């Protein structure tokens, strides 16, 4: 087994026992990236020099007896998260030569913990999408079948974890962007509660639902990363003052006794997705879980509400890309508005322009009440229905995506792409934590999503950890 194939937990043990060094672990990741990323295009930038320097630094700290949970562990980061001194593009031409002047808080915390930053991963431009097909720098290919997409928008991070290019990766999740590609690539994707982890240094998309998220090889690893990145940050006014607790699942137990799982009626998922979902349900029952059917009548309106709220916030958040203070600049025009428009014309891709215009329309005079305000009320309705459901069950379980990974050439209208997120949006609306774990892996992975009440990550990760051991073909790996 090559070192890059290890989980965080096993790598940490070997690092502490001095069986391996962080430098050797990092070299194996860099080698895997060199060898495989030509086929995957998961990465947009690799910082070999910086990674080796950080690995040597971690080895020194380990030699001095330090025992951090991520000390010496190599990771990749979605390219809409600021990384000081490294190009940070959000997969957009408008930022193609932008170098981040500071680190996002999640990056500061990971670096302080001694984790080794390898580089940046691909995404849909500004995280707008569910396939990475909207990246200005080309699509990421799915490690399980390179003729298919990796999902999105954090597709590069998910593909990288699945292909063992790193031990874990960061993504961002606004309406499913961590969970969706996790499902397509057969890895674990955790979206923490809104406010648990700082958004400072995330390139803003939808500020009311954006969160940094984690792509990992299993739930224990995801919990380990969460412990490092969670916690109040004074630079993010929406981050919460929470007690520092351990999120690590107890691995000794496989009992789900006493656990009540709510399953919404009518999932309209594909046959293969339904089959793995049903298999998981049966296995969980054998381990003591009880299932109840829950009614969430308004979730059928979630996609429509989301595609009003998100574009509205996008149209506002992306107004800052004027080409003056950073990013592309038009120096040919002396007039302000001409320069502003020219930069945006050349710098933004089709989906970004579509969302900006859709949001501008929804917020424009005469339409605000009919669209934006109405969507925000529907959001409340959906949150209320979830809160009512959580009075009867501990967790809610759904398929993560309606199908497994689709072909890169599949004809998808913008609207059919939006419907990819139908099971994922409600947790984002309510700020609730949610996780996608593999339900099956072959021939293509399918994902199962668990949603927990606000700030109940510990329970969520405990159940996910048990259930990932019940998945079909759980030990299968992609052969890139």
């Amino acid at each position, binding site marked *: 087994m090559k070192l890059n194939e290890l989980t965080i937990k096993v790598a940490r043990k070997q690092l502490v026992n001095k069986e391996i060094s962080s430098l050797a672990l990092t070299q194996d990741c860099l080698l895997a990236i060199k060898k495989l990323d030509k086929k995957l295009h998961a990465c947009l930038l690799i910082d070999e020099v910086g990674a080796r320097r950080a690995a040597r630094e971690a080895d020194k700290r380990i030699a001095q007896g330090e025992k951090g949970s991520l000390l010496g562990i190599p990771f990749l980061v979605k390219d809409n998260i600021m990384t*000081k001194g490294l190009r940070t593009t959000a997969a957009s031409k408008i930022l193609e030569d*932008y*170098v981040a*002047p*500071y680190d996002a808080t999640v990056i500061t915390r990971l670096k302080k913990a001694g984790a080794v930053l390898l580089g940046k991963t691909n995404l849909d431009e500004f995280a707008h999408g569910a396939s990475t097909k909207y990246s200005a720098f080309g699509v990421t290919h799915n490690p399980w079948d390179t003729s298919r997409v990796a999902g999105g928008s954090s597709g590069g991070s998910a593909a990288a974890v699945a292909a063992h290019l790193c031990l874990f990766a960061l993504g961002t999740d606004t309406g499913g962007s961590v969970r969706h590609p996790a499902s397509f690539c057969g890895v674990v994707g955790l979206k923490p509660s809104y*406010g648990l982890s700082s958004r400072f240094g995330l390139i803003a998309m939808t500020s*009311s*639902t954006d969160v940094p998220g984690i792509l990992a090889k299993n739930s224990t690893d995801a919990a380990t990363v969460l412990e490092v990145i969670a916690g109040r940050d004074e630079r993010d*006014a*929406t981050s*919460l003052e929470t007690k520092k607790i351990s999120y690590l699942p107890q691995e000794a137990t496989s009992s789900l006794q006493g656990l009540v799982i709510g399953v919404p009626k009518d999932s309209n998922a594909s046959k293969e997705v339904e089959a793995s979902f049903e298999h998981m349900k049966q296995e969980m029952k054998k381990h003591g879980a009880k299932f109840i059917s829950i009614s969430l009548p308004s979730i059928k*309106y979630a*996609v429509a*509400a989301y*595609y*009003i709220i998100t574009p509205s916030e996008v*149209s506002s958040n992306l*107004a800052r890309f004027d*080409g*003056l*203070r*950073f*990013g592309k*600049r038009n120096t040919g025009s*002396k*007039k*302000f*508005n001409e*320069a*502003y*428009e*020219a930069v*945006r*014309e050349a710098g*933004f891709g089709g989906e970004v*322009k*579509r969302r*900006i*215009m*859709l949001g*501008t*329309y*929804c917020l*424009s005079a005469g339409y605000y009440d*009919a*669209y934006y*305000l*109405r*969507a*925000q*009320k*529907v*959001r*409340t*309705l959906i*949150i209320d229905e979830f809160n009512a459901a959580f009075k009867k069950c501990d967790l809610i379980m759904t398929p993560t995506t309606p199908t497994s990974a689709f072909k890169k050439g599949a004809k998808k*209208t*913008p609207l059919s792409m*939006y419907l990819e997120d139908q099971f994922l949006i409600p947790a984002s609306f309510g*700020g609730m934590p949610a996780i996608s774990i593999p339900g099956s892996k072959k021939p293509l992975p399918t994902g199962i999503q668990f949603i927990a009440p606000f700030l109940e990550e510990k329970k969520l990760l405990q159940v996910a950890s048990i259930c990932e051991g019940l998945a079909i073909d759980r030990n299968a790996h992609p052969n890139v």
Partner: protein
Amino acid sequence: MNLSKKEIVHIAQLARLHLTEKEIVQYRREISGIISYLEHLAEINISKKEATPSLASHSALRRDEAKMWIGDERAQTVKSAKVTKNNYISVPRIFES
């Protein structure tokens, strides 16, 4: 809902996006299609519901205190602008004489 060409051009103008003739045709079709889907929301009775524009439960207000940037962050930030003069960012004139 079918947006007119005039409406698409107006929206693009508000969004500071310049569209080619081809893009006007394309976005008119796509955005009209999406808006038709969004109109499903009109079916629900939500007159008594409050809106949830934000999940932040606490006040986001804090003292307006200037804080120093760390190390070279300030210099790097100014450097991000393509056109600078004496450590200031130079921008095109907004009001025309």
